[in-house]
């Protein structure tokens, strides 16, 4: 049985951009800053598209929760090969209280509505560094999960997943339906070609609100401020190895 796959794709500040904190510290500068799909989500999209190409998946649905511009992120996923998109619009004003638990509730609701068999999302977004959405989605649906996946293979009715763990690698078997979070080594995402970007414009994108899905986005957590991390001061250049060893001894590091 071919799987119906749901992939999360979050719009974030592009990974190569030097993030700047706003002078009033209410957040980071986003105006005029290049945004793109969270790199780990791109890997999730790629994996799902490859599954469809191998006929393991029958349909790939890309979902993004965020402001109006998140539609562009969905179009990128469609250009990479996803079949249709769902945009759950979150007004900009609500983004400081919008948390991974809300995304998880939205993904869980859509998974039921669309009869999804497999959800793949990036292991974390590079803006909030939360590393929570996949796990909470699995918890809400009471589905098995495998985080930090570096390999996914069909094994009978189950999926065999290799996970990156602190000490190396771990192999797990998960029964479908399941939630998987993608790590860096899972694959190398393709670039969307121009013809596919054109085709993507014609693919359907459904617009929903959290309310449509019965999800309340009020929150007990809010972001108060964003600050620059402490910057490292340039230290000293030592002249030779002797002086370096002397400094390391001084600091009791050897």
């Amino acid at each position, binding site marked *: 049985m071919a799987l119906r796959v749901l992939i999360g794709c979050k719009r974030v*500040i592009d*990974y190569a951009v*030097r993030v700047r*904190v706003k002078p009033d510290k209410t957040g*980071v500068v986003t105006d005029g800053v290049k945004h793109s799909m969270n790199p780990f989500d791109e890997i999730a999209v790629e994996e799902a598209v490859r599954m469809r190409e191998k006929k393991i998946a029958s349909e790939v649905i890309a979902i993004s929760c965020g402001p109006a511009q998140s539609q562009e992120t969905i179009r990128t996923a469609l250009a990479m090969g996803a079949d249709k998109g769902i945009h759950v619009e979150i007004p900009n004003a609500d983004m400081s209280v919008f948390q*991974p*638990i809300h995304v*998880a509730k939205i993904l869980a609701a859509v998974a039921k509505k669309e009869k999804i068999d497999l959800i793949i999302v990036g292991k974390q977004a*590079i*803006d909030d*560094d*939360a*590393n*929570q*959405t996949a*796990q*909470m989605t*699995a*918890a*809400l649906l009471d589905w*098995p*999960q495998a*985080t*930090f996946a*570096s390999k996914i293979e069909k094994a009978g009715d189950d999926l065999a997943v290799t996970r990156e*763990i*602190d*000490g*190396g*690698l*771990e*192999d*797990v078997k*998960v*029964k479908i339906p399941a939630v998987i979070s993608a790590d*860096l*080594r899972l694959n190398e995402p393709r670039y969307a070609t121009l013809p596919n970007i054109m085709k993507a414009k014609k693919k359907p994108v459904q617009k929903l609100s959290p309310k449509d899905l019965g999800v309340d986005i009020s929150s*007990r*957590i809010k*972001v*108060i*401020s*964003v*600050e*620059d*991390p402490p910057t*490292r001061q*340039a*230290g*000293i*250049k*030592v002249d*030779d*190895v002797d002086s*370096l*060893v002397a*400094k*390391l001894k001084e600091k009791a*590091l*050897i």
Partner: protein
Amino acid sequence: AIFVFAETAEGKYKKAAIEAVSYAKAVADKAGDSVTAIAFNATDPSDVLYKYGATKVLKVNNPALAIFTPDAYAKAIAQLVGDASTVILTHTNDGGTFAPLLAVALDANIVSNVTAAPESVSPFVVERKSYSGKGIMVVQAEGKNVITVLQGSFGVIESAVSGSEETVSVDVQSKLTAENQAAQSAKINLIEAERVVSAGRGMKAPENWGMIEELADVLGAATACSKPCSDIGWRPHSEHVGQTGKAISPDLYIAVGISGAIQHLAGVGTSRVIVVINSDPEAPFFKAADYGVVGDAFQVVPALIQKIKAFKGV
């Protein structure tokens, strides 16, 4: 009580466990409360945790928890903490994986990757890592909270108390089958390592890594590498540190032949002391280094190995 999960590896408390208990003690002091630690299949004596402020250790001995499965771990802990206001874990691979499940089970908030003791505990106001280490987010969380501490960010702080232990049992079941754990493992766990020797494309070829491994050996350090080196297959992926790889905060980070791109710094910038060895005096990494040596790695590293050996008398 403030609950804390004390992670073990083969029965021994990991550095991550000690850091989590140290953090819990700081929270408990602020809340006028005490620390209760939960440990699965620990063979280490509980004294290890009393020393850092745990007044109670709840020990669970259950073979079903010997291999990590997120749902079983979350369920087991949820049973033990009742309606506690705060549960603290370290954001290790395991801790970070099951903390969100625990938060859902407890109907608690989750605040992951916190980097400092809270400014206040009710509501919980705390700094956390964001933008891949390029920003610090201050969040406020009302009600019950599951907190994960970014590894190496808080450190270990001794605060000995007299404690007691209790053996408890839990119902455990998992929907996952885990097998073949840690199929490949390094001599020293990179994330837990106090010293790390890391190298980049400046090494020119993978066969030149002998001296990097030798330097790591004499220092008792783990080895790491930059993203390009793992991408082109010079080094295993498990060694990649940086924005998209592992984030580490050792006491000593020695970078050899790594230019220090912003994405690399995002993963190592919280190290206590950074030493940069690079032949290019303009390498950006020197701006973040405590000690920089401008020179050819193929001369500097062997000389460094010799000097350290001489100092240590080996």
